[in-house]
């Protein structure tokens, strides 16, 4: 009788669900011919960047699983990785052994920072993203203090090449010549002139297996439970705060490895800026791949890195051809990275509200059915 009151709003959410990757596909598709790069060049660049950036982006997955949103705190991990790299550079350990030792050195630092981050985020429930973001800045201040004032004074540094001329403090740019490409060039494969860094990909595959594996452990199950509904998880006796802290620690540690892989590819480290970019670019890439604040998969990671970095490659050239200024393309790219994060965050927030509404509608229809039954 009173059918129209409980409107049954049925909408397809396909476009809003996939708006970001679709939009990017369009931009990239339009940009490729404009840039005028050859296919083989693009493929080479793409493979390179996939191997370089994927690991960092993958490190974002675990906290998303635990419902803590995008972990802007991976910059903490990046800093830890860089500390490892500073030491192996100083001690002069090269190649894959150097990378491994850098990772082992970075791990305790990352665990410590991750623990701290977890503690802070537990205190700031519901405001995790903005808190981890600010925490990144805060720890960056401390990192600069350690790097500029303690290294070479309190923490012994042997090699004068990496110190500022005044005798203490790490230089702005540190050459990582000893480990440059160590992982990429170990067992690399050339197919039709395109070099494939096989080992790096192997590490990434291992990581993916790790993600799948951890999902099937008790810890993974707890994380998913906490991620979906904190209060229910708490009621069932799961130690929520600890689970959340662990997820952040895992993410931070992995990010430190990711940063090491990233920098071995670049071969130089900007001591005080390399890590800052890690957070923003990884998150933007993940979101471009169609992930949301609450849901992200391996597909999102790789699709995202591919699309986002394709834009990186083509935008300066496309800008130059289009308006005659490479700088303009560069600004466009910066705008797109920030724009895409804002857009994804907005879409997620809007969708979360729409979903609440959808649930309400579902509840109403069920009640309607009940009423109908009764009458």
């Amino acid at each position, binding site marked *: 009788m009173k059918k129209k009151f409980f409107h049954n709003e049925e909408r397809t959410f396909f476009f809003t669900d996939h708006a970001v990757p679709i939009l990017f596909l369009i931009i990239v598709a339009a940009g490729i011919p404009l840039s005028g790069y050859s296919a083989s060049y693009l493929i080479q660049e793409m493979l390179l960047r996939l191997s370089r950036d994927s690991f960092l982006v993958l490190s974002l997955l675990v906290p998303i699983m635990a419902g803590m949103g995008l972990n802007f705190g991976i910059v903490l991990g990046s800093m830890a990785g860089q500390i490892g790299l500073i030491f192996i550079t100083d001690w002069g350990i090269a190649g894959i052994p150097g990378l491994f030792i850098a990772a082992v050195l970075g791990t305790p630092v990352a665990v410590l920072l991750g623990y701290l981050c977890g503690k*802070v985020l537990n205190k700031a429930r519901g405001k995790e993203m903005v*808190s981890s973001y*600010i925490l990144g800045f805060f720890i960056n201040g*401390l990192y*600069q203090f350690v790097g500029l004032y303690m290294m070479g004074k309190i923490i012994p540094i042997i090699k004068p090449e990496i110190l500022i001329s005044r005798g203490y403090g790490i230089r702005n740019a540190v050459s990582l010549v000893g480990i440059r490409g160590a992982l990429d060039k170990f067992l690399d494969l050339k197919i039709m002139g395109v070099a494939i860094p096989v080992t790096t990909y192997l590490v990434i595959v291992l990581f993916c297996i790790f993600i799948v594996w951890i999902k099937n452990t008790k810890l993974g199950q707890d994380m998913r439970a906490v991620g979906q509904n904190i209060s229910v998880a708490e009621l069932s006796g799961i130690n929520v705060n600890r689970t959340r802290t662990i997820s952040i620690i895992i993410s931070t540690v992995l990010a430190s490895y990711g940063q090491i892989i990233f920098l071995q590819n670049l071969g130089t480290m900007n001591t005080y800026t390399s890590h800052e970019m890690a957070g923003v670019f990884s998150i933007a890439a993940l979101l471009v791949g169609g992930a949301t604040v609450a849901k992200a998969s391996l597909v999102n990671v790789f699709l995202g890195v591919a699309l986002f970095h394709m834009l990186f490659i083509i935008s300066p050239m496309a800008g130059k051809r289009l308006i005659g200024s490479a700088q303009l393309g560069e600004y466009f790219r*910066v705008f797109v990275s920030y*724009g895409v994060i804002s857009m994804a965050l907005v879409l997620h*927030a809007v969708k979360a509200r729409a979903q609440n509404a959808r649930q309400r509608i579902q509840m109403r229809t069920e009640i309607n059915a009940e009423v109908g039954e009764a009458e």
Partner: protein
Amino acid sequence: MEKMRRILLKFIDEAGWPRIIIGFFLFSLFAIAPFVGVRIDTSLKDVFVRVGMNGVMVLAMVPMIRSGCGLNFGLPVGVIAGLLGALICLQFEIVGMTGLFTAMIISIPFSVIFGYFYASIINRVKGAEMMIATYIGFSVVALMCIGWMLLPFTNPIMVWGFSGEGLRTTISVQGYYQDVLSDILSFRIGEHFYFPTGMFLFLGVCCVGIQLFFKSRTGLAMTAVGKNPDFARASTVNVDRMRTHSVILSTALGAIGIIMYQQSFGFIQLYMGPFYMAFPAVAAILLGGASLKNATITHVLVGTFLFQGIVTMAPSVINSMMESDMSEIIRIVVSNGMILYALTRKELYRR
């Protein structure tokens, strides 16, 4: 004795540890300064000038916090509006006091338009405002980088000399409106001390204006929306509209704030200049004792003074003590530490 203790505890509770620590730190910096060869009068001058410069931008936090939109990390939106006003004023070569106020007046319609769009996003994302505001700020700054390169400004002091197009990264306002406000009724004591009276008068007018606004019907409604949107709604207040008003007001204050800043600083900073503008302002108001939900004019004034005091005094004192420049690090640690403290503090009021 017991009473003293209770008063002390109450004071600590109300002021909060960070504010007390920073206050003591600042005080001790002033105390040490003469012994390490830093002139107190010069330092005080610097602090006052900086308080005047930044005051209005810190004030721009108040409306949004009050209406429950959280900390205004999207301050760059207002800054961009202010920049547009300033640039247009320079383009038409309007100088002096007229120029300053023309710039402000021109910037207001821009801030209303920008603020409206900013608000329409903020209203859709209730509960996640701060992160999104940050990124809206960043996006707008990045977008305007393209704008600065393409907009048809022609005044030779603004555009790159060699190509004749695209705006410079920094543009001097000397000969336009540099210090026109600061110098009103300003006075000097001795060789080093200078007090920018005009700037403080203007800041005072803004503060009183905002204070009065929050006693008006709209202002009261705004506060109610921030404290309890359901209550406001039940009292016939249109919640979304109040939030929109507050965002527009914040944006306009941001625009006026940046023009004040340029007036004293002497330069217009374009491109990535406004990128991190929000953070010192946010930190300052939190240092003043504001929380994510409540902010008053007192918080603005106290906070700006403490924050600017620290960032001026700490480097000069520490530099002369240790001969190294730690100003940047201190600024980063203090401002972000303060924001973190506010984010992790338990909200006293529960709904």
